[in-house]
């Protein structure tokens, strides 16, 4: 518990830097999240620049985690913000809700190993035969974070979330290349799984907690729903089709 407090502060502090959130104590976070539901979003329609890019950051409020520990959430936050750094194109991964998304996925059926063949015997992966881990995705990510932090600490003296952004990127690059030596779990399969989850959180419909304010859809120019183009495919042939994106919540 004593460990957890500063980590939560880190999460909130990181958010406060780019979004208009008053820093609050760690244990107040749940209330804030409840008091600022997604439904408040329509009022805060972001201004789009002529190129359709986001001018303002979404209101980011770190939310309570369902299943990730503070250490795990801090690791994923640091990783998500290196994978999707804040810039003119969009807020950072965590500001876009990627950590909330990943927590939600790992706390649910996906994290528990739904839709996976999980029977033994197990053996090390063979080239071309896909992942063979006996672990559920939740436990795989957990074991990976633990191995990653051990490796990062050995190399940099601190865990991932304590590093400077350039060092975070350097450490992740080593994992991406399979060059970080983890005990038991390969750094590359771990990074692949993490990258996949971060990208899902960044690009999926906002109802899963990520892609807040449809920031990624604005960035690339994906209009979202309802996606009925029979009357547009010819008129917009070769011309940019630019609209305010809409998500599932806008039609529910």
């Amino acid at each position, binding site marked *: 518990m004593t460990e957890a407090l500063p980590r939560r502060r880190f999460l909130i502090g990181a958010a406060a830097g780019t979004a208009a959130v008053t820093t609050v104590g760690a244990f107040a976070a749940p209330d804030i999240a409840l008091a600022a539901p997604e439904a408040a979003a329509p009022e805060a329609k972001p201004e789009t620049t002529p190129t359709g*890019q986001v001018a303002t950051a979404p209101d980011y409020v770190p939310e309570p985690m369902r299943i990730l520990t503070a250490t795990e959430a801090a690791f994923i936050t640091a990783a998500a913000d*290196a*994978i*999707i*750094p804040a*810039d003119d*194109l*969009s807020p950072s991964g965590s500001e876009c809700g990627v950590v909330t998304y990943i927590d939600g996925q790992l706390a649910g059926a996906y994290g528990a190993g*739904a*839709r*996976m*063949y*999980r*029977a033994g*015997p197990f*053996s090390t*992966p*063979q*080239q*071309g*035969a*896909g*992942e*063979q881990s006996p672990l559920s995705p939740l436990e795989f990510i957990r074991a990976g974070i633990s191995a990653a932090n051990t490796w990062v600490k050995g190399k940099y003296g601190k865990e991932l979330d304590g590093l400077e952004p350039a060092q975070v*990127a350097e450490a*992740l690059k080593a994992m*991406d290349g399979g060059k970080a030596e983890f005990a038991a779990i390969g750094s590359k399969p771990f990074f692949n799984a993490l*990258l996949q989850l*971060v990208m*899902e959180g960044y*690009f*999926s*419909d906002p109802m*899963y907690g990520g892609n807040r304010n449809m920031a*990624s*859809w604005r*960035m*690339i*120019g*994906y*209009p*979202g*729903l*309802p*996606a*009925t*183009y*029979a009357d*547009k*495919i*010819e008129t*917009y*042939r*070769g*011309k*940019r*089709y630019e609209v305010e994106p809409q998500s*599932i919540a*806008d*039609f529910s």
Partner: protein
Amino acid sequence: MAKKLNEVDVVLVGMGWTGSIMARELSKAGLNVVALERGPNRIPGEDFTLPNIRDELRFSVRQELMQDPAQETVTFRHATDKSALPMRRFGSFLPGDGVGGMGTHWNAQTYRFLPSDHTLRTDLTKRYGKKKIPDDMLIADWGVTYDELEVHYDRFEKLCGLSGKAGNLRGEIQKGGNPFEGWRSAEYPNKPLKPSMAGVMFEKAATELGYSPFPAPAGNMSASYVNPEGVRLGACQYCGHCERFGCEANAKSSPNTTLLPVLVKEPKVEIRDRCYASRLVYDKAGKKVTAVVYVDLRTGEEYEQPAGMVFLSAWVFGNTQMLLHSGIGQPYDPKTGKGVVGRNYCHQIQSAVGVFFEDKELNPFMAAGSLGMVIDDFNGENFDHKDVDFLGGGYIALNSTNGRPILNRPVPPGTPRWGSEWKEATAKWYRRAASMNCQGSNYASRGNYLDLDPTYKDILGRPLVRMTYNFTDNDRKMSAFLTEKGAGIAKAMGATHISANPRKGDFDVVPYQSSHNTGGTPMGTDPKTSVVNRYLQHWDAHNLFVLGASVFPQNAGYNPTGAVGALTYWVADAVVNKYLKNPNHLIKA
């Protein structure tokens, strides 16, 4: 002990395209049909509705409509000297599940095979001599010709309401269609879809190069359509959510939109969903099957359903597993080359050519599963193989299937996978990229086959199917050739960046390639090398028929389902008009 039920005329195992067509045809002929489907019922108006049907995470990434690997998967190895490991998730292909099967969530690119694809060994031998065909290439004639199947291709196309343009009407070449296709008795039932920007660019470039581009034959309705069953399909909205999704507009041909509205009202058809067939009861001496054993997944109770006739319509792995597990027919042994069940297993040698245009707006999200422009100049026997060191080929298409952002946001080669540079490239290229698809054939090889895994089991306790499969030299050479031609078109389109990715190295079960798996229960003229005869009737059980792409002796350079649909109507016709009059072997072995 399985509870024994009263005998019915027909039991079908699996309720995808093949099961649905057969249920319709046999009930029309007056037979009582029971269809067992291990997955749930799927009703478009309830299961596929806006806004939730546009959920890419749920349907495309988490694959909600597909077979659950926890229930059943396949194991995989590259060669017999390795031990196989289970596919713990599906990747390279996505088996279907539930009423409608894969047809619920396919793209509906619906081709006819070339006449020569049906008589491949004969045609290749005639054209190049026997020596051109490698000894370990197990290609074969189907035993039924294109001319015999034409009327059945036509029926399937009318059932689907395909949008397209004929290239060969009764022998006369038509402008704007595929000049290489076999003759057709009629124009497509629906006019072609409106092409995408990328499609228009492809068409122009291909024409300049002297090729013959044509609109991809599409099970996406260019206009609302009433099929011969009296069922109305809606007009396609170009929403870009076909593959892996159901269609909320009923604008994509599928069993659910073309046949099931009729079947659910038909008293002679009973669809038992969530009923998992485990094996067939085989009377070896009598050369027939007598019943299908299944488990009702709602209760866990086991039943034995006696039947006058049984149709396997459980797709490639399901059909093969059912025969092997029930001990019907001799399993194939790659060492001796003897045996038949599991033989001729093939996939599709697909490759992609990514194209990026600095100064073009492509709106990739304005799309449809079969919205594309195609050339067939390098498919099958459409070109001379005399001077090349491989056999086969494929079409090359620019399909605008979707711009769904989780899985489809290409960046030029050399771009990092994450970080600022990746973001910048993604923001820049998402709207300016498209992909060409080289739909390469896969000619059967002696070492590629299916059998039962000695270790891993499904939820019913049956051995999983074990896939032993790898690309062959022929495949790699064919893919290099075809992909190179695709890159040539990309160049002519004026692409800023081109990323050509021929199939190289070894097969990998992770990246999606296609769900065009074929073989395992090949059809043919000789019971020593085939499982079923030209009517898809089992050589060793006259009241057992096997439907679907598992009967292909090899895979052609097309998506399979047009040919699968035609074959299913062909079998229905033979059963109703021949078999019912004299229930016995239609061909003497």
